[in-house]
């Protein structure tokens, strides 16, 4: 099930009704049961049999967490390590099988063909379970945190299952930590108008970003992107297309997150933010503090942190290698294709170079306005180049696309591109507002203005929606 569907509207209304009746304190058992069942229905809506996968991986992690954290039966370090390994192996094994199995087999086929063997490697042809990358990471973080002693294991499997399967964030994040969510289940949260209206505002803005901006931009991007692979394509049009895709993916993903967070608020839960105006980032480090915040935080704490260990001093070259590897894995997380690996590597390399130059610190000459402005342009250009790899059908087509851009062969911008630009305007305005807000150029928007803006967005959702498209991040 996804948010832009009538089935979701029905599910939402059922849960809202439950919140207003059964769940006025949010901690009632009957209300939590409704949430739990709704979450399982939400997930099973796509492919019912995959519910077994979700239940299986959560059961493994719940058992592992219980095994690790029992104070009456302390485990030896070896036992603890084995329990953690079992949990991670199960999670990563399932993820690898469904997500990377065919990619590995295809790569093997290419290798064999390149070596002169004619053997044909059959593909598994498994349909990717929706949201597997998200809920797997979420579930793994629980076991790792219990292992590290950061949190106590949860006693109730139902509560653990609710944490992993909570439908607002189940299939496309944000990736919520157990330490953020589990305590909320037991904490009463009375119905409050402010939380309700804030949730409603987030949901409306999310639907606006997705249905009006992302879906309309997708029409232009999908219709013209492949023109960029042909020799002699107009550079201006391609730059415009890349910008449109950059806006499309932001609106798609940030829109989903807003709906998820708004839904969470209305149901009595706080879900962390996942985006914070990423296209005003002045450094690569800052970009990853603003884009898919929960993923970059996960990678920092569980991959980079694990590689780096607890040593106080790590040789600088090793640190750079860990950073690059973490970002490559982050790219691979997005999809089983070389373009995602290249995308991750590009960002990894950019972060390493930025660290080498010490630019993110902004001290000395690095803090000069011209240097900062110049680096901002570099950052956003590299982000845009990365999006070309992200969107393209393969490494070679992406390279052709970029070669056409680099040829700087411009003709007059066509009307179609101008028309598509209308849907980028909200992204520009949103970022400009955030930029001004952070520099105290504007005060926080008064509630009545926010409400009026919500009214405008709601109207536009009804009268300017694009064709219904699946959320891009659902494929992860």
């Amino acid at each position, binding site marked *: 099930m996804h948010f832009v569907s*009538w089935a979701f509207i029905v599910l939402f209304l059922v849960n809202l009704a439950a919140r207003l009746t059964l769940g006025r304190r949010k901690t009632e058992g009957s209300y939590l049961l409704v949430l739990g069942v709704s979450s399982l229905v939400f997930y099973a809506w796509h492919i019912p049999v995959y519910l077994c996968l979700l239940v299986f991986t959560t059961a493994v992690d719940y058992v592992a967490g219980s095994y690790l954290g029992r104070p009456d039966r302390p485990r030896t370090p070896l036992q603890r390590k084995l329990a953690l390994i079992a949990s991670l192996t199960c999670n990563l094994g399932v993820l690898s099988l469904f997500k990377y199995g065919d990619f590995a087999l295809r790569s093997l086929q290419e290798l064999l063909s390149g070596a002169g063997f004619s053997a044909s490697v059959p593909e598994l042809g498994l349909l990717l379970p929706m949201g597997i990358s998200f809920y797997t990471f979420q579930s793994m973080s629980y076991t790792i945190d219990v292992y590290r002693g950061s949190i106590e294991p949860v006693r109730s499997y139902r509560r653990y299952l609710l944490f992993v399967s909570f439908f607002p964030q189940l299939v496309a994040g944000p990736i919520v930590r157990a330490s953020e969510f589990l305590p909320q289940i037991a904490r009463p949260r009375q119905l409050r108008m402010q939380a309700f*209206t804030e949730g*409603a505002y987030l949901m409306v803005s999310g639907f606006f970003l997705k249905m009006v901006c992302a879906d309309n931009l997708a029409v232009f991007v999908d219709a013209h992107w492949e023109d960029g692979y042909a020799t002699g394509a107009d550079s201006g049009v391609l730059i415009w297309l890349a910008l449109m895709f950059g806006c499309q993916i932001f609106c798609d993903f940030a829109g989903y997150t807003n709906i998820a967070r708004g839904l969470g608020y209305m149901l009595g839960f706080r879900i962390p933010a996942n985006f914070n105006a990423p296209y005003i980032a002045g450094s690569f480090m800052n970009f990853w503090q603003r884009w898919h915040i929960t993923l970059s935080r996960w990678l920092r704490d569980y991959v980079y942190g694990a590689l780096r260990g607890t040593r106080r001093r790590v040789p600088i070259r090793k640190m750079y290698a860990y950073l690059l590897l973490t970002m490559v894995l982050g790219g691979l997380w997005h999809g089983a294709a070389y373009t995602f690996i290249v995308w991750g590597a590009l960002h990894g390399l950019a972060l390493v170079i930025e660290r080498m130059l010490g630019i993110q610190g902004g001290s000395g000459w690095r803090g000069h306005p011209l240097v900062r402005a110049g680096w901002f342009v570099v950052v956003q250009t590299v982000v845009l180049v990365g999006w070309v790899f992200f969107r393209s059908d393969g490494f070679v087509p992406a390279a052709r696309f970029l070669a056409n851009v680099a040829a700087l062969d411009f003709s007059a911008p066509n009307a179609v591109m101008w028309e598509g630009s209308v849907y980028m305007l909200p992204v520009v305005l949103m970022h400009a507002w955030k930029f001004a807000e952070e520099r105290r150029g504007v005060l926080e928007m008064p509630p009545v203005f926010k409400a009026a803006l*919500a009214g*405008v967005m709601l*109207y536009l959702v*009804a*009268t*300017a929606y694009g064709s219904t498209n699946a959320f891009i991040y659902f494929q992860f």
Partner: protein
Amino acid sequence: MAVALVTSLALVGASALAWRQTPLSHRRLDIADAARPRPAGSYYLAYDRGGHVDHHILYHGIDRTALANMKAADVLFLGNSRLMWVLTRLEVRRFFFDYGLSFYALGFGHDEEDEFAEALIQRHDLRPKLAIVNVDGFFTGRRSEWAHRVMADGAWDAVKLQFEAEAAHAARRALHRVVPHWGDLYKRNREFVIYRSRTDGTWFVGTEFGEGSRFQEPPEESDAGELQLALREARRFKAEMERRGTKLVFCYVSNARESRRLAEFLARELDVPLVAPRVAGLRTIDGSHLARESAERFTRAFFAELRGILGPPDWQVSR
């Protein structure tokens, strides 16, 4: 919350007024104006802006009435939307009523090809007495991208798709009677709104397209390779249908894109009767689908030729 709702309603009111009281009133939206078939329960949504729905419904057999009628039909029509367009006429029903035969229009939009039709026939084990096949673009040995998706999906996916399509259709119909979709209004986008009969599979086209424009059938040139490929596929298809006890008749519906040469070639090579009337002064709405008046004239000529192939109905012979 109240401010947000008031703002939305104010914008709705203002745009509804603007749409009705300004020159914008000359621009219409098909979703708001499209006719509905009667009785409503005998039809389901086949196609609108959201895409095709009938492929899933028929392939996965999720509508029991449609499935039963399809299986019981003595005559099946197969082919693309050009054929389905002319089969919307009352003429079809009258014709087969005379023969005491039941029929089912099993053509599809999206330029659906023989692979999908054959897969559907095998899936539901259809064994009609007669299959009338619109040849243009049919015998390719391929299936469309949409057919790939339909066949990869399961029955549950078909149920979900139908639910979402019907709900969205109803909501959009109601909404855009009051406020326009600005993008469609500005670009004057046309929308095919098509319902499909559960009884006989014929289409009810809700959108009014007007008189259309004249066209000429394209010159009778065909690629030799394409002819041979089509012949190979048609031969295989004929063998499969004969195995099911089904006789074949080929047909060709006049249009501006594909010539009748392929139909004539296949009919001759496979010794299959061909229905391909030449009717003067036809008009299409888009170069492919006949305008309403032209479709009626074409259908009359079509069934007159078909009557010549089938012979008079038994009750006429016995008189």
